[in-house]
């Protein structure tokens, strides 16, 4: 079972700022952001595991030992024309979230929030790194990878989470889920990547994963909210 431990040699301050809900704040002390970025790098323990399976796009079935048919239209559309799927699970562990909670309890609210945002940035960066690793490996075999798609995106039910964790063999990097399908540690990501043969390559939609999300009021959404235009 492949293990890949992403190396967080940098974290984007702009992303931390966005996840903290202030993508356009210009007068916030940069030192506060830098401190959160540094501490985020210090506390994130990035680990991931992934597995590849043949995929039958005609029946939307992941051909694992026990076949798994996908029913949600969003994930089916995302994986159309894919011949294989990579199922992945990434985490930065518990240390960061515990530290953030501690700061909050001490009354350092903004630092706790920024550190939490640094954690989100770190787990997304770790997932990006794993995705790039997989993309490059399969490009050599003539495959184009779709971007990653997670349970909860579009109408893909988050209750698929335990199945995804099982397929990605996420237990070996200590990711589990609660009864309500939340990932533990909380700063974890699971996703599926489709491998399409080059000749069937489709024009991938917008790079922004936000464009498919229905949470239009999300503070970290990449586009402006409608009521923000003035």
């Amino acid at each position: 079972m492949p293990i890949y431990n992403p190396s967080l040699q940098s974290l984007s301050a702009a992303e931390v700022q966005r996840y903290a809900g202030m993508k356009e704040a210009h007068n916030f002390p940069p030192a506060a952001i830098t401190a959160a970025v540094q501490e985020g790098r210090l506390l994130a323990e990035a680990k991931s595991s992934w597995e590849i399976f043949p995929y039958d796009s005609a029946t939307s079935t992941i051909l694992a030992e026990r076949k798994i048919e996908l029913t949600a239209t969003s994930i089916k559309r995302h994986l159309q024309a894919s011949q294989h799927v990579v199922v992945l699970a990434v985490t930065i562990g518990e240390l960061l979230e515990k530290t953030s909670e501690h700061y909050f309890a001490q009354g350092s609210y903004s630092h706790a929030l920024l550190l939490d945002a640094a954690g989100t940035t770190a787990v997304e960066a770790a997932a990006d790194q794993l995705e790039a690793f997989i993309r490059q490996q399969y490009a050599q075999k003539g495959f184009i990878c779709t971007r990653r798609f997670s349970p909860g995106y579009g109408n893909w039910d988050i209750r698929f989470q335990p199945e995804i964790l099982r397929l990605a063999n996420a237990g070996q990097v200590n990711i589990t889920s609660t009864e309500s399908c939340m990932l533990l540690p909380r700063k974890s990501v699971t996703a599926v990547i489709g491998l399409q043969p080059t000749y069937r390559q489709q024009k991938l939609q917008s790079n922004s994963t936000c464009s498919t999300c229905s949470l239009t009021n999300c503070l970290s959404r990449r586009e402006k909210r409608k009521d923000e235009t003035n």
Partner: protein
Amino acid sequence: MKVSVFDGAMGTMLQAAGLPAGYCPELWNLENPAAISKIHQTYIANGADIIETNTFGANRIKLEHYGLADQVATLNEAAVKAARAACAPHTKIAGSVGPTGKLLEPLGDLNFDTAVDVFQEQIRALVAADVDMIIIETIIDLQEMRAALIAAKTVTTKPVICQLSFGADGRTITGTDPETAAIVLSALGADVIGANCSLGPAQLLQVIEQLALHAQTPISVQPNAGMPELIHGETVFPMTPAEMAEWAPKLAAAGASYIGGCCGTTPAHIQAVKTALLHVSVTRQARQRRFDLALTSRTRTVHIGSKQPLALIGERINPTGRKAMAAEIKAGNFIGVKKEALGQVAAGAKILDVNMGVPGIDQAAAMTTVFHELSMLVDVPLVIDTTDAAALECALKAYPGRALINSVSAESERLASFLPLAKKYGAAILCLPLSDKGVPRTAAERLQCARQIIAAAFAAGLKPNDFLLDALVLTTAAEQNAALETLATLRLYRQELGYPSTMGLSNVSFGLPQRPIVNAAFCAMALEAGLDAPILNPYDERMKETLAAAAALRGEDPCGQQYSLLYAPNSAPLEAKSAALTLDTLGQIKSAVLQGEKESVIPLVEQALQEGFSSLVITDNALTAAMNEIGIAFGAGRCFLPQVLLAAETMRSAFLTLKKHLPAEAETYLGTVVIATVKGDIHDLGKNIVAALLENNGFKVIDLGKDVAPDCIVEAVRIHKPDIVGLCALMTTTMTKIDETIAAIKEAGLSPYTIVGGAVLTKEYALAAAADCFAANGVDAVTLAKSFMKENK
């Protein structure tokens, strides 16, 4: 130098010869050796000078997939035999060694020693069967290449070719650039360094140019026949033999003296390449200056030398005299060490010294952990600082780059144990002029001692690019001429030896007051005497100032531009201050809250109390007014959540100050709120933010935490009789618990005002769940709570 031509792809040819899909290619070495020989013959007939054995996947980790892990020797020997059967008189056989398919620690879970053992097993078999050379190829990670090359060098003296696979961004998948690869592999003793697979010749051209500039060996290249496409289930490489042949002379001009093909290339491609190279020869010169030193991490190279920028070596990862750090290391906790690494790099260190010298610990184990962790965290090269040879070897194995070994003295035991390790793992050495006879006092004696170390190093196989000379710093307070002797040593080193120099600066000021003054002055003098890489505390402000000024004076910072950026007086804060000064004390408190100035609000509140303002007036006219203003700014999108929180923190400081001075008066009370994240939901940062904002706005908040069942919430409402209940859910799977909780509260005959919120919630959902209102965010929740209390008081 004439260009030698390799063969092309083996896999493509095997498939054409009928190898079934999914069948172990290496098994044909035993079962169908004639087919293997035939492929070799075809390549030789088409011009290949060197053929590669059919052993790319013949290591035990790869063979395990086919249940053939115990057949390593047999399959490799059979492959060489099949190759030998095909050879023309001048054909050379290269034993092909491919990746294990697993990533080494810390990127993956394969142990370094295991990897070395796996490669040794295969290479031993190839060598026993008498290949002419080993070719380690298609490796995507520098650490795996290090393991394979070290394995090869420990079992054979035959030449070893090392080829990495680079991606379209010019780096290997795990981030190594060609320059770093060239430096690490040259130092490890690779005989040829190159690139193969993953890219076509056009994309590999720049990689080859970079390798040729920085490697001290000949260069090889085996591109794919263009970028692959998967057509009707088959991987197709689009480049024709004629197109490929056009690139061959360009690759030779870029510095490659071994050229062949990888995936998708056929005997026709090799013939075309051979023809195109008939009258081409290669001449090239490595760029690295004769005596300069290059150190690398996995992803970055730092050069040290007289024409290079000053390379600061951070000295702070050292538990000597630092009780807290020593205790942490002893407990197996490296957070403090990692913090020092990040901090020093941020402060300008280009290289980090790493010392784990804590008495009573397993230093070797600590070195392995810390070199793994730091290699994942920072991209600057590391220095291994230990006197323990076992710990040194562990660090050398763990580190996926070219490290520097600190403190190689002329003491005979040190030379005997450290130099072979430096050679084996391709590390550079810091030569410390100390001998069995003790500390040499004069510059001339130190030079003599350095010469002794260098001579021993050459005898152990090290090269002129492997040295950094320490000038040795003694204490001025104890010895009048200590500093002058060190400066004289620096000058002598430069004049007589030419290798770059270093020294631990701070020793000089030991026992003197205001040590940073002495250190900075000494640093400036040492730079002029030829110091290239000072070991120092990068946080020292005076040292930073001295280095910035020195860079300007030495012409490294043209016209002092960087210096000016750092030290030009900044007028902006003064303006802000003077604006604040025009306000009265209450105005200043309000401004401090708005700006989130946690520290400055405390004396301001104290001042206001002295001026006779009551706690109530300060709260209403300054603090609450500020929070209201922040709330309005937030609603209008002019300020953002972290700013609101910073203001709340400032407000908290102010309240605590009021409480301290006027405990009876300071209480403000708007109402009671019971707040919880509902059952099944474990996210509570959002809920915590709402709770904190409510609290700082005068509410008494009873926070039940996260994952709280409806009956617990009902019970809390019964006991505390709150005015308001706040419920939060973040996920679609948990938001139904909001409905259940509200129903349970109502069923119990209780009727607090209910406010709900959380990422997936909407106004519509809140109404359907029978909540009294929906809060889109924390500020909104405070506004709703306040207006409810106002209407119902």
